[in-house]
């Protein structure tokens, strides 16, 4: 049998079945065509593929390609920050084979045409790009978008991300309506009034710097309300970027009560805390929800450990240098995250003993896929060849020049991480290959 690509000497970890073994993979026609148990593939066979068609994954893990539920690719509208092409290239560099784009583009993804436009642009991109539609028209929090139309155009969830649907009646109707299509409603849970004008977490750090704070309760109240509404309507609710101890606890209770609620946490919220801002007023540390206290960070990790938080999502939010090289309060909130995600997950969660590598892979593949109802292939013959190959032991330093994203707004530049993506394969095609 002739393969398009061979991956040899890798250590396969399948997040679905949970198996872990050394094997070689032959890929053909975008699918996993054959799996050779250790020693089955002879050296002469490999020689036929030398060059571009063989990837030696010795010492590395081969796993299901990652899916990010939460990215901002800025197209249409702000192509100066990111485009579908540059964003998907960054995704591939981070080991992602699929992403879900938030609808806060200009115009917003609140109609079929924009959704189709985004997905059509992605056809030549470096990963699968799915759209999340807006809950309300123009994300204004007032009238429902044509959600049925959006679903027909392929959106996998709805969200007004960036803003909370402040009116509880509108949120109730959105949840009820979305239930017809069995898609989750993703909530950016921060009460607009309590968080108004806030530049950072409300804590002694905001007191010290004299900055207006966004209190933890702004998130907690918003999450609790939405869980109550999800309970009332029987709909699926997904909480984006949980950042507070109280928020994690509310989700834990909601799950225990049988509410259909899921949640994600970002690498920055399980890695960074608000006391870092005072050192350099680094505008890359301005993000919503804000970086919180060490106790919150620990609670987010505990939520990842006990399954309260189902998945890791990056909230990849590109902004230009021009926008970020300003006074702290003038900088737009957000940071890029696709290319540092795996390294941070391994460095902060696996290396410190909170999660196993298998846990992290699940939180980056099967778990988010289940939330938005996307197929997530395992490592079996016949499955789509969406794969990531990474060295969990390799150490590297995040460099500004190393980013594929069009924007460089990362507070992790200069940080040493463990866990490096060596190659990403989407539909049998190599979408990223690390420089050796």
């Amino acid at each position: 049998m002739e393969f398009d690509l061979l991956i040899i000497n890798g250590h396969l970890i399948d997040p679905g079945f949970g198996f872990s073994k050394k094997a070689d993979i032959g890929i053909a026609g975008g699918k996993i065509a054959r799996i050779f148990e250790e020693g089955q593939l002879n050296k002469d066979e490999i020689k036929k593929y030398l060059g571009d068609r063989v990837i030696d994954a010795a010492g590395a893990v081969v796993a299901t390609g990652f899916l990010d539920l939460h990215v901002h690719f800025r197209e249409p509208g702000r192509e100066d920050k990111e485009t579908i092409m540059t964003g998907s290239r960054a995704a591939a560099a981070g080991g992602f084979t699929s992403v879900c784009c938030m609808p806060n583009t200009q115009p917003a993804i609140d109609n079929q045409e924009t959704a189709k436009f985004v997905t059509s642009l992605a056809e030549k991109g470096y990963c699968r790009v799915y759209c999340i539609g807006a809950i309300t028209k123009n994300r204004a929090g007032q009238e429902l978008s044509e959600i049925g139309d959006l679903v027909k155009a392929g959106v996998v969830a709805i969200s007004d991300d960036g803003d909370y649907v402040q009116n509880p009646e509108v949120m109730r109707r959105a949840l009820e309506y979305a239930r017809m299509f069995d898609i989750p409603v993703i909530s950016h849970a921060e009460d607009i009034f309590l968080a108004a004008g806030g530049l950072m977490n409300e804590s002694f750090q905001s007191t010290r710097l004299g900055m207006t704070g966004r209190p933890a309760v702004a998130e907690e109240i918003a999450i609790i309300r939405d869980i109550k509404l999800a309970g009332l309507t029987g709909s699926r609710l997904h909480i984006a970027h949980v950042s507070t101890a109280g928020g994690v606890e509310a989700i834990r209770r909601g799950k225990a009560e049988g509410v259909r609620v899921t949640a994600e946490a970002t690498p920055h919220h399980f890695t960074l805390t608000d006391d870092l801002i005072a050192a350099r007023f680094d505008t890359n540390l301005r993000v919503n929800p804000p970086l919180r206290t060490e106790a919150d960070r620990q609670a987010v990790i505990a939520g990842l450990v006990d399954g309260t938080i189902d998945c890791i999502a990056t909230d990849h939010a590109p902004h230009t240098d021009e926008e970020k090289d300003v006074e702290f309060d003038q900088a737009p909130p957000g940071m890029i995250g696709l290319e540092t995600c795996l390294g941070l997950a391994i460095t902060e969660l696996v290396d410190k003993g909170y999660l196993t590598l298998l846990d992290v892979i699940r939180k980056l593949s099967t778990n988010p896929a289940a939330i938005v109802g996307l197929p997530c292939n395992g490592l079996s013959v016949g499955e789509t060849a969406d794969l990531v190959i990474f060295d969990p032991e390799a150490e590297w330093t995040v460099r500004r020049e190393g980013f594929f994203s069009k924007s460089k707004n990362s507070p992790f530049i200069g940080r040493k991480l463990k866990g490096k993506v060596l190659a990403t394969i989407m539909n049998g095609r190599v979408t990223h290959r690390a420089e050796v």
Partner: protein
Amino acid sequence: MGLSTRHLLQLEGAPREDLNLILDTAESFREILDRPIKKVPPLRGKTVVNLFYEPSTRTRISFELAEKRLSADTISFSAATSSVKKGETLKDTVRNIEAMRIDMVVVRHGSAGVPYYLTQCLDANIVNAGDGTHEHPTQGLLDIFTIRRKYKKIAGLRVLLVGDIKHSRVARSNIWGLKTLGASVAVCGPTTLLPYEVERFGVDVYTDIEKAMEGVDVVNILRIQLERQQAGLFPSQREYTNLFGISSERLARLNPNYTIMHPGPMNRGVEITNEVADGPSSVILEQVTNGQAVRMAVLFLLGGADKRETELAKTE
């Protein structure tokens, strides 16, 4: 021996030696202010730019005079007449100004951290003249200087700050500086104007003005801004005055030889009565004079003393 820093960004983390050096140096300049000729040459040939992105009368005039009295060339800039309105970034504005070969920048800006940001954009010495509600280090220093001149010490004194602690850069600079020099500090104000976990500054926190005044040497009364009432932080000016206004009847619990301070501008009849503001224990105008001396000391030590190899001031 000089300062450990080439910028004055904040009093948080400022070493005791630096504070004492500024205060001691200010004593010499304070003496010059009582002479018929108040001009000395140490900043001759230096150019100082006063960048004021927020309206200010007293602080700007105080800095300008301090610079002129040190023989510096000065230029002042306020946001209303600058290219800011044309959409130029702060970084471009300051780099353009620096390209005209200036030596020091005194900056007042509405957003916390701007003085630090300027240290990253410019080679000039940066003096913070108030950044957002973060710090106002020269005001903190002049308040401390005024107290020290009267009591000949700071350590062991009890200082009470009254009013809108949450939105006060003056309060923050006072607290850090006073604590470093060994004073005991209390704050008192409506709970809505006390910032989150304010006690973590290492201060005693009161909402009852009578109790707060017990055994206090210095009362520093902060300005209450009327916008705060409109933002719903207290119900009315009348109620604020009833609960926190400083009138002579309220001074009874203070230590004898007490001192009344106010960074200005005052809302007479709101946070302070005329009787208190103009009374024998008030040093409010003395503060203004001392502000000159302290600012001269800061500018002299940062820009006029011999060139030193020093590191940037950092928070940590």
